[in-house]
């Protein structure tokens, strides 16, 4: 079992938001995560956004550093920040697992509120990304960030998780090229970002 990394605090059919267990350290943009959906069913999703904000939306963060104490030292001096701030990440569901069966369809149910989000181990990433239909789901989803950045981040991340699998990267890039062929600027942004030869 992989590491629990967060707890769901917003959820609907097409995206869920989880609070990260480590402040300022949401899972990598573009990474594949999975949410517990009861029993042995899981929802797979791609991290499309991460942020750290004030817990109380009415009270924004203010400056805490001093000339002799900044960055990490701010947190040492203000342990209460752990409670005033939280780190959230947004996940776009792109598939699911029931027992051994992996599907790349959007799950029929959103993952339950307050359930856990886990990181995926490289083997699981490899298994899930073997087919690449989910890239279409991701590219056409309503994203909290520009699609080219999310796709680029995911391709680069998965390429590394797959141990530098160039063949996979090229096929995935071709798939993305098909999806974005009407919008060359976006497509080129992805290609330049993922290019292993660059």
């Amino acid at each position: 079992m992989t590491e629990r990394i967060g707890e769901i605090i917003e959820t609907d059919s097409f995206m869920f938001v989880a609070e990260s267990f480590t402040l300022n350290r949401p899972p990598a943009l573009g990474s594949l995560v999975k949410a517990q959906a009861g029993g042995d069913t899981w929802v797979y999703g791609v991290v499309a956004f991460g942020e750290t904000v004030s817990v109380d939306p009415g009270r924004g963060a203010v400056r805490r550093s001093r000339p002799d104490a900044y960055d990490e030292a701010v947190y040492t001096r203000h342990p209460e920040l752990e409670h005033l701030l939280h780190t959230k990440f947004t996940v776009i569901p792109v598939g699911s697992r029931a027992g051994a069966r992996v599907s790349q369809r959007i799950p029929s149910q959103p993952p339950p509120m307050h359930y856990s989000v886990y990181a995926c181990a490289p083997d699981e990433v490899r298994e899930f990304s073997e087919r690449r239909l989910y890239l279409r789901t991701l590219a056409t989803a309503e994203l909290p960030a520009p699609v080219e950045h999310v796709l680029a981040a995911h391709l680069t991340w998965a390429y590394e998780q797959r141990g530098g699998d160039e063949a996979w990267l090229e096929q995935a890039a071709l798939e993305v090229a098909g999806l974005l062929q009407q919008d060359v600027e976006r497509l080129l942004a992805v290609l330049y970002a993922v290019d292993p030869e660059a």
Partner: protein
Amino acid sequence: MDRKRLGVVVDGSFTAGLTVRLDPGQSTEDLQIGSFMVVQGREYTYFCMLSDLQLRTSDARLIAKPPQGFTPFVSRVLSGSATYAMAVVKPMLMMPTVDVRDDSRQLAGQTPEERGVMSVRTIPMHYAELVEATEIDFRTVFGSPDKPNHFVFGQPLTMNLPICLDLGRFMERSSGIFGQTGTGKSFTALVVLAGILRKNVGSTLIFDVHDEYAYGKESEQKKWVKGLKHLFGSKVLVYTLDKAQSNRAGRPADGILEIGMNQIERADVILMAQELGLTATASATIGLLEDRFNERWLTELLAMDPESIKAFCAEKGAHQGSVEALQRKLRELQRREYVRESMNANLLDEITLALENGKHVILHFGKHNSMMDYMLVSNLVTRYVRERWRKRTEKYEVSKQAADRPRPLMITVEEAHKFLNPEIASQTTFGTIAREMRKFHVTLMVIDQRPSGIDSEVLSQLGTRISGKLADERDIDAVLTGVSDRSALRNALASLKLRQEVLVVGHAVPMPIQVRPRNYDAEFWAEVAESPVSVAEDDLEREKRELFGA
């Protein structure tokens, strides 16, 4: 048999052809315009010709501002997605897909028709696959070397397997061999003629003005090639106009051809109007002379003194100046070494009889190879021979006896535009033969480097066209006069190499195809020759030495 997939059909129409999106990674540079390809539909498999390749982009910005400096990775991904290629293929024949799945079924039967190949009546749906043609596909459509009249003419440009001509159908209608000078028209004609002689499909009469068919010639590789007389011996009779040439070693002639002034008709002279510098009144003047003197008109004209010209003009109402001018110009004919005052028809009868009896006749011009000699003799002989075939045909139509059935005759003419240009095609025997199709079992094989000089009505009657590379648009148009799928074929023609590559369209092939004609070489000679000929290199060299004293 597995075929390499090239792309999928995404658009198209029956008339314009199918538009195929090439698969990512499939380079246009691996495909050749005019090549033979296969589209696999659900019910039918379509045999097609690649007629166009097009580059496309999905986003106009890629055209306006081509991205620069990308790595091979990016360009690999872009090509086949945002930048991609389309192929246009023209289906020409089709066959039930169930038969194509099974090699033995696909090759069953002797002819394409027997195998279930039919002309296209429909088109496949979206996403039918375009695949490379396999050897079996080629054999299905083009290869039947075992059929009686089928002759291996060459091979596809990209593969080494036989493409056959149905010589029976080839001879049934007039045909043309075209191409710029040096593309291999004469060599191609030699291959076809050797096939006709070998397969005994009919008789041929060849006007060998450039001295290449009877005794061969030196190729541009400085090799001396065999002529039809060498290959077929007594089956081929050579009549020469050039006495001096007739008994040279290695160039046996069967007779000397002479013609009498009494055999020259108005049409023969008018045909040479340009060469002789005749004016527009010449035809009318000759008419008056013929009225008065019948077939002796030329002899009489040339014998007239000023007084008798005056008398003739007074009697017939001819213009004196015209008669004088005509007389002056036609002296040119009299001066020809092979023109006699008067000849009976024995020699022409001999030639015609030989043709009727299944021999082949080559008229050899030797040193008398000016356009004037060529036109005069060819038209005269052809007129005589056709007349005989016409009579034979009429007799056959009455008797309906198989024995009376005229043997198919094909007349080969180089420089065909001389006889078939729009101004004179309606008056020459060649024009008549081309237009009346195979009514009298006589057809032409016209050879020309400038087909646009040939009357379009004649061109549209051609059953089979074999064309090498042509540069001039008008010539390309001319070759494809009266042919369907012109735009596809036009591209196929334009993409041929300069030498020994031809497009074959029409009667003698199931569908148009680009072919590399067989090498006309020792191997070929050994295969077609009737009597075993010695084709050893040193033998040819010896002949050449004897000929040229080299």
